[in-house]
């Protein structure tokens, strides 16, 4: 928007006026920038087949159409970054007030060997009603993570068999129609996230590309 204003002040000749008009048209068409990173069109629509920890049911990506979805990959034996991220997302969603229920935070385990459905269920429930714990077979998980270019790897087990899991830190945001829209990074604050979620929730279905 600042670019548009600067061009208006600089306009003197007929050429610049033409340029200004075309720029204004362009500005009118472009949506204002998002606070979070805009990754619209850079990844496929939300699609997966996984098991929901709360009831053991098979769920698909399309089951979440109508909700704004925050997709995060992690594991329950992660004491620092995963709970910190989930707490941040929860905080941001809670600030939506009555609209919070229009959002789901999908926590997909990248450690299905240790994350049993029961464990994931307890874990997700501890974080609140918007967090959905999801688990898949290794093959399903591999296919899902490959589609969204999510990487993960396992460290060497220690004497007690405990091991660490490295995993992508990004949180992907899908709109109500399941289209990829935004990416939340580790430096984004809760108010920033809340602001962009409000914008996504206010969109009329089919209005945005």
């Amino acid at each position, binding site marked *: 928007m600042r670019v548009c204003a600067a061009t208006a002040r600089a306009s003197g000749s007929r050429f610049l006026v033409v340029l200004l008009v075309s720029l204004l048209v362009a500005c009118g068409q472009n949506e204002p920038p998002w606070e979070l990173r805009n990754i619209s069109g850079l990844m496929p629509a939300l699609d997966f087949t996984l098991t929901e920890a709360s009831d053991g049911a098979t769920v698909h990506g399309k089951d979440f159409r109508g909700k704004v979805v925050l997709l995060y990959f992690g594991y329950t034996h992660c*004491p620092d970054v995963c*709970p910190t991220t989930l707490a941040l997302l929860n905080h941001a969603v809670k600030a939506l007030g009555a609209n919070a229920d229009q959002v789901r935070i999908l926590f997909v385990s990248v450690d299905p060997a240790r994350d049993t459905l029961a464990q994931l269920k307890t874990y997700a429930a501890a974080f609140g009603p918007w967090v959905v714990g999801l688990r898949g077979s290794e093959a399903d998980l591999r296919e899902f993570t490959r589609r969204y270019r999510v990487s993960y790897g396992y460290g060497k087990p220690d004497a007690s068999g405990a091991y*660490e899991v490295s995993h992508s830190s990004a949180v992907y945001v899908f709109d109500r129609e399941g289209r990829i829209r935004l990416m939340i990074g580790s430096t984004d604050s809760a108010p920033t996230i809340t602001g962009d979620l409000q914008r996504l929730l206010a969109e009329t279905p089919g209005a945005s590309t």
Partner: protein
Amino acid sequence: MKHVLFAMVILGMAMTAHAGQPAVSVSDARIRWLPGDLPMAGYFVVTSHASGPVRLLGATSQAFSDVMMHRSLEQSGVTRMAHVDFVDLAPGEPVSFAPGGYHLMLMGRTQELHPGEAVPVTLRFNNGQSLEVNFRVTGVQGE
């Protein structure tokens, strides 16, 4: 003679105390609760008031079978945890153990823990010094 002996005992006690307690202060010590027996993270801010360097070597607690010092690292969008053998404390410069960075990894609960409770954790420093600190157990949101 009696007085001299008494003075020596007092002096000895004072020296023991000096050797045991490092000149550091710890604030905002907390553990974020997680369900079951999942490993939890301990956070705090530690500041050295010693004139020379002080090195934090780790921690122990009766409430856990194992406590390790870790650091979360993010490289090229991937998060991982690294073991930390020690953290050097420069005089007067607070070092934060905080979400997304340094943290204690507390594993194997020896007792049930609930948000709102306090758990004693002993921080170990160089020269055999240690400091017991009460860590407050917070809820999962860190509140």
